[in-house]
């Protein structure tokens, strides 16, 4: 208990004797991590935004002219049995005409009352996880294999662009996140290095009196842990508070689940210990 008591007292003393350093470290790390959290939320929100946009994506499967109506229900069953297809709606020639009329604002087929030239089709929707180029291509290939299918249409180019944009945002975000994280860790290491540097004489004397490296380092490592974990938690608290003060009409901010935030704070605390050690290790060398 004596040694534990000493470590706790040293930890408290560090904070009391260097309140400016401790507070500045906490504040700078909180701001850096707030930036990281902001990006995390922005990334989650944009992902959700894209998911919503893509959920409207439909595929039109046009039936070949020579296919008799009696085969349509069998074709519908095979289409709905295709992996990834959520709903299938049959669009008859008459429904297609109504749709076309609604789209262009006038009946382009006036005079074709007896022979409606519009094709019959099936309108497909998909499960959210299938709304990507690879799966859509797979579904398109599968459906093209049916003899009754004439051609297939969906907004492939739009999906391609949406995916490229999402990928770009993710890549840029990953780079930015990594940069922010490195900045945070270097800041912690540097703060601990400065703090340890100011106590180099004391560390040397402790070593000369027989104190081990871990015993000397532990108060500062605990401080790093608290600094990292505390700053990460403060960053999220600030962000949650801030998001409660403003309201967005076009989208809803998507926060990661609390469990993930907790793990993030813990991971940050552990990384801060590592960077604290890096900042400290030179002072602990026995020379």
């Amino acid at each position, binding site marked *: 208990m*004596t*040694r534990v*008591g*000493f470590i706790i007292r040293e930890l408290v*003393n560090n904070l009391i*004797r260097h309140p400016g350093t401790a507070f500045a470290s906490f504040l700078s790390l909180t701001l850096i991590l707030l930036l990281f959290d902001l990006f995390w939320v922005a990334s989650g929100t944009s992902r959700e935004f894209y998911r919503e946009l893509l959920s409207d994506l439909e595929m039109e499967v046009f039936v070949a002219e020579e296919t008799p109506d009696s085969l349509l229900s069998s074709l519908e069953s095979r289409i709905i049995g295709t992996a990834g297809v959520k709903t299938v709606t049959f669009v008859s020639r008459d429904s297609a005409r109504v749709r076309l009329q609604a789209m262009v604002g006038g009946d382009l087929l006036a005079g074709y009352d007896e022979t409606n030239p519009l094709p019959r089709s099936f309108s497909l929707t998909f499960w959210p996880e299938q709304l990507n180029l690879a799966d859509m291509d797979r579904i398109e290939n599968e459906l093209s294999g049916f003899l009754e299918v004439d051609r297939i249409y969906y907004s492939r180019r739009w999906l391609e662009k949406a995916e490229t944009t999402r990928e770009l945002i993710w890549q840029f975000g990953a780079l930015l996140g990594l940069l922010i994280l490195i900045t945070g860790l270097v800041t912690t290491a540097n703060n601990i290095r400065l703090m340890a540097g100011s*106590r180099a*004489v*004391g560390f040397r*004397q*402790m*070593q*000369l*009196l*027989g*104190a*081990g490296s871990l*015993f000397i380092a532990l108060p500062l490592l605990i401080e790093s842990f608290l600094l990292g974990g505390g700053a990460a938690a403060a960053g999220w608290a600030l962000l949650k508070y801030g998001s409660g003060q403003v309201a967005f009409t076009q989208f809803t901010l998507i926060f990661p689940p609390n469990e993930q935030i907790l793990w993030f704070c813990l991971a940050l605390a552990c990384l801060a210990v590592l960077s604290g050690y890096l900042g400290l290790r030179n002072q602990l060398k*026995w*020379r």
Partner: protein
Amino acid sequence: MSEQPVIELYNVYLNSRRGSPVFKDLSFELKPGETAFISGGAGSGKSSLVDLLIGRCFAETGSVSVFGTTLKKRLFRRSRRNLSRIGGVGGIFSLIPSMTVSENITFPLVLAGVGKSVRNERLFKMLTEFSLLKQASEYPPGLTRVENSLVQFARASVADQPLLMIDEPSAGLDKGTFERVVQYLVKASLSGRSMMILSSDELELPIPNMKRYRLEGGALV
């Protein structure tokens, strides 16, 4: 059966970082309860001797043993285990600036895992013995040189460390304080502690069981 020496140096050769010889065939032995007074001018190797004994540097050839542990570079952690049994004053030993006088004095007890009540008891004894009661809650930068020395002596004695290493015992002390230090050294010697006193000056010390050496040309004469 003879007692195991506290310090044993046998045919030690040591070069400085620049490669010039510091010790040439140095042999020395300090038995329990003995005091060695080693004098030598500046650059004679007094500090190197301390470094050698606490494991800050290692002999090129020959052997160095402290409390029966042979100090070797590849087993440098071993040498650090001995440090808690050495009470150091002066030279490379100084006070921990971020700790109060009381905390400095009791630090060896904290390392030894001694409980709070015993620690306070020994602290009070040391503060009284070295007249440091008023300075108990001061920090080292606020102490005079004399007070600083006295705190170091108190710290070197608080855990009854079996070996005392004193570098320049008279440095910075007035005559009255030095006499008190000498009395303390006599008392420490009589209590059976081994001491190694390093000094630039030839001091007359009435310490029983004291052997005098002089560091000259890399050897003890």
